[in-house]
């Protein structure tokens, strides 16, 4: 672009600087999906308030600093946004080349969890303590890796125009590559993450256009496996009770049942407008365990009421709706598959997390994207937003 003829603005105005470039009609900034970005930022902001409310009285966790978790959550969000920008800058296509490296790195990290480097937090041996109060949950990043590695394999020949749909060999290969890290995560055991990964795999397969047989077979295998495990009595009664306690808290009144019960009381007592931030008695009284992480939604329910909790659902809806649009509108299958994997991930993890606080899903240790406190999760979801933006930015302009 040049200045208009016969009239030079250069003397009066500076050369188009970085800001102006970013504001240009065809610039990356203008082509970003702003609804998705703003919604994700809003969710992270609400999350910061909720995490703050849930932790400012928990002296045993915050070492007497009521702002400790608030600060860390904001910091995590900042790092997350930076990771998103980095991802957009690199571009999902560039990342495609790095997938084998990322995959290998992921396997190493989750294997490291199984070594003495790993730490158990809340019953899941899923963490690597980095030091300085930081710890890493590699399974969060594995979710991205699985999406990328499967998308790379399944879309390669289709995008090259060699196939209309991925053939059986490709699908089998992709599934095998996904199954390896899932198996390791299962050993941790971090069943919640495995569940999410299974849904991701399903979403990826669906979007890739893989044969119906694969999709139905996968669903069938999941149901069959669950039935088999129950029928063969591989689970103890207490494990089944734990699982079923979300529906009937009396089955495990001291454990999961207590959580669900208190969570339901917290949310139910919020009413339309809630008790007001910092004013919820369930939250102030710390009746709900893990309230800044897995049960963060209960703070919203109690203190912000139906209006506030509903807003979280709406914002998640915006993110998912825009993600679906991105999946549909991108020209190459690779982008569509990555977007579909992210949609499956966000949708299922949100549904499971909120569903368990509402007593309609079994309790599993999964964070609510953007809202829950936790660095690894925060970084992973923002990288995912970066991938979505990259898919949107790098698709050819249709206008």
């Amino acid at each position: 672009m040049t200045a208009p003829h016969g009239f030079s603005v250069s003397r009066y105005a500076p050369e188009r600087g970085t800001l102006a470039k970013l504001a240009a009609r065809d610039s990356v900034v203008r082509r970003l999906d702003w609804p998705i970005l703003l919604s994700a930022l809003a969710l992270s902001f609400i999350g910061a308030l909720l995490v703050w409310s849930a932790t400012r009285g928990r002296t045993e966790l915050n070492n007497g600093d009521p702002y400790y978790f608030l600060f860390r959550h904001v910091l995590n969000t900042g790092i997350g946004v930076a990771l998103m920008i980095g991802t957009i800058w690199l571009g999902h296509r560039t990342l495609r080349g790095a997938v084998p490296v990322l995959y290998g790195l992921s396997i190493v990290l989750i294997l490291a969890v199984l070594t003495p480097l790993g730490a158990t937090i809340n019953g899941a041996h899923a963490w690597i303590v980095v030091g300085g109060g930081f710890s890493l949950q590699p399974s969060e990043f594995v979710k991205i890796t699985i999406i990328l590695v499967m998308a790379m394999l399944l879309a390669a020949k289709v995008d090259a125009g060699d196939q209309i749909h991925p053939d059986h060999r490709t699908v089998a290969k992709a599934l095998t590559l996904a199954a390896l890290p899932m198996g390791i995560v299962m050993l941790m055991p971090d069943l919640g993450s495995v569940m999410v990964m299974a849904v991701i795999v399903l979403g990826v397969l669906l979007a890739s256009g893989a044969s119906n047989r694969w999709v139905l077979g996968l669903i069938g295998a999941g149901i069959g496996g669950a039935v088999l495990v129950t029928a063969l009595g591989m689970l103890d009664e207490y494990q089944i009770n734990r699982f079923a306690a979300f529906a009937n808290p009396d089955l495990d009144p001291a454990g999961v049942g207590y959580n669900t019960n208190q969570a339901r009381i917290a949310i139910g007592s919020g009413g339309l407008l809630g008790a007001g931030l910092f004013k919820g008695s369930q939250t102030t009284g710390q009746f709900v365990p893990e309230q800044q992480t897995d049960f963060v939604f209960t703070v919203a329910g109690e203190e912000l009421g139906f209006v506030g909790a509903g807003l979280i659902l709406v914002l998640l809806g915006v993110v998912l709706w825009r993600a679906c649009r991105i999946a549909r509108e991108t020209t190459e299958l690779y982008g569509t598959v990555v977007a579909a994997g992210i949609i499956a991930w966000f949708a299922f993890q949100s549904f499971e997390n909120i569903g368990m606080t509402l007593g309609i899903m079994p309790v599993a240790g999964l964070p609510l994207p953007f809202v829950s406190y936790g660095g690894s999760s925060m970084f992973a979801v923002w990288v995912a937003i970066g991938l979505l933006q990259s898919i949107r930015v790098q698709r050819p302009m249709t206008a």
Partner: protein
Amino acid sequence: MSNIPETGRTPRVQIRLVVIQILVFSLLLTLGGRLWYLQIRNGKEYTDEAKNNHVQQVVQPAVRGSLLDARGVPLADNETRLVVSASRTDLMKMKDRGKTVLTRLAGVLDMKPDEVINKIRLCDSKTPKPCWNGSPYQPIPVTDEATTQQALQIRERAEDFPGITAEPTAVRRYPAPGKSRTSQVLGYLSPVTDAEIEKAKDTDSPFLRSDQIGRSGLERTYDKELRGKAGVTRYEVDNLGRVIGQAKNDPAIPGSNVVTSIDARVQAVAEWELHNAMVEARKVHDKNTSENYKADSGAVVVMENKTGRIVAMASQPDYDPNAWVGGISAKDYAALTGKDSNFPLLNRAIQGQAAPGSIFKVIPTTAAVNAGYDFNGRYPCPSSYSIGNQVFKNFESQGHGSITLGQALEVSCDTVYYALSHQQWQKDGGMKPKKNANDWFYKTAHQFGLGAETGIDLPNEVTGRVPDRKWKQDFWADNKDYWCRIGKKGGTYVQQLSYENCLEGNLMRAGDSVNYSIGQGDTLVTPIQMATIYAAIANGGTLWNPTVGKAIVSPDGKKVTEIKPTSHGKLPMDTKTQALIEEALAGVATRGTAAWRFGGWPQDKIPMHAKTGTAEVYGKQTTSWFATYTKDYAIVMTIAQGGTGSGASGPAVRNIYDALYGLDDAGNQDLKRALLPQPQKSLPKIETDGSIDAPKIKPYDPEIGKIDPNAPPKAPDDTPQADPDKPDQQELAGPPAAWRRD
């Protein structure tokens, strides 16, 4: 233009993307619906549940009101002890769960650290005592005997003792002014039971687990007034029970004071004299049983005639009510309630019942007049009265010729009453009673209030018994199986009696009505009933419900609610009969069976009326009864297995009157010494700060009225002039005859 770009992708993928989108939004809608259901539709339910989660009540006990005597002398009050308490909620917040603080506290209190730690642990099935059985949110007392020094140390170094308080706390005390214990009348407190806590849980005055409530006596009757209202602070707590806010605070309202009609000085005299009379009776030989009298229990009641208020009420054996304070020990409890204890908790003035013997005779006298006999008619008083082959002897088989009913009262002639009662029995149809039998002798007893509670404001009063036809029928129905089993014709006394009872125990036999007429047989009365009756004779016929409580006064003295006496009937006698009976009872005191105990009594100034009674009890020694009254007071004393009425109880009753009126042995009155020449009318003044200007009380000195403590009662010389018409009365009035039947 379609917003689906030309991607060159197959419809399969496009359709699947739409399916994914639909699935995703279905999930979100599900969550939204469920959220609405929980928060809007059922929100109220969860709000209530959340409230229960968070609110804990802490109760501050109200200071219990005092029981005061008629002049304001405390009979039961509270003393302040320094109680050191530990707040469990504060201690549990500390890193070592308060161990350092408690160890430091143990050092100050000269206790072992373990001792202190054990006191604040919570009781459960596995925890041995000591442990805390109350609410964990309540400050837990570590000791109630801290010295001022210790309390100061704790308070001055508050930073070293977080969660520890040293507060003066009110503890019940029975100070026994002038050595008047007033044990059974005051009653006692004991901890609430779980059932009571549960019952009061949702009322406006919930119990603390550490609460005490009145179990007997005035403490029980006026428990509600005395207790006041405990303060309740509702705290919001977190999941570990830590306090995070204060929701509501109702301050404690101290209990009201109850002013009684008891005069502690008179009470002290009554208690000392009753006890002394029993001690003296045990020195007297009983020729019937060939051993000394056992005098195992007794009671005395001093009542105001015109109101029925109780000035003094003593029951022996008694006990120190302070034994109950701070929890009674197992040893003390056994001593008060065990099989060998002789049951000192019983207030025998209202819970002891016995055959009244001759103090009953005012009732058959009234019955005879009401049945149509002339009071001043002439009735034979032979030495014995025969029905068939049964012979009913007069006392000592004495005969007195032909006498009036008044004289029959004075000399306590049994045979006059035998004959009258027997005649009425025959008139009523004998063994086959008429449908509308008059039953004058039984009806009159009921009209005098016997066989029913007097309604005194003390719990668990007993009714006594009028052995009328209905009672006989009921009693027989209850016992005939037993009687018929053990009864044997011509066997031992008991077997023979059971045999007869089995056959016709449901019927009023001639012998029954004869025995009944002199207050023997199955007749039972309580001392309070007899005091009520004699007070009624004195006051013109009103049977007052006796009262000990006189007024309820608020802690600041501003609100005074007087307890007005109520009556439960009038005596069934006209004024003429009453005057004649009064004259006869005065005669008993001046020339009859009680005269030898009232030598030197200023009868012209303070007219004395009396009736003595010596009731026979099968298998036991005789019961001594003495019923007396002046214009203002009635005094009834009884001693079980104590001997005769005037013999065992006479001197004690006389000494109580002497103390009331300030008399010496010779009958000289010294009003300065008189404790209560007139009943106490005014109420004591309670200041707004709750203090009471009560007079100081000196213990009773039994020697004070004695002119010569060594001189024996001057009975023979003082025997009044006999009725000129009846020279043989002189003998009756004469002492000493401790064994004599009145």
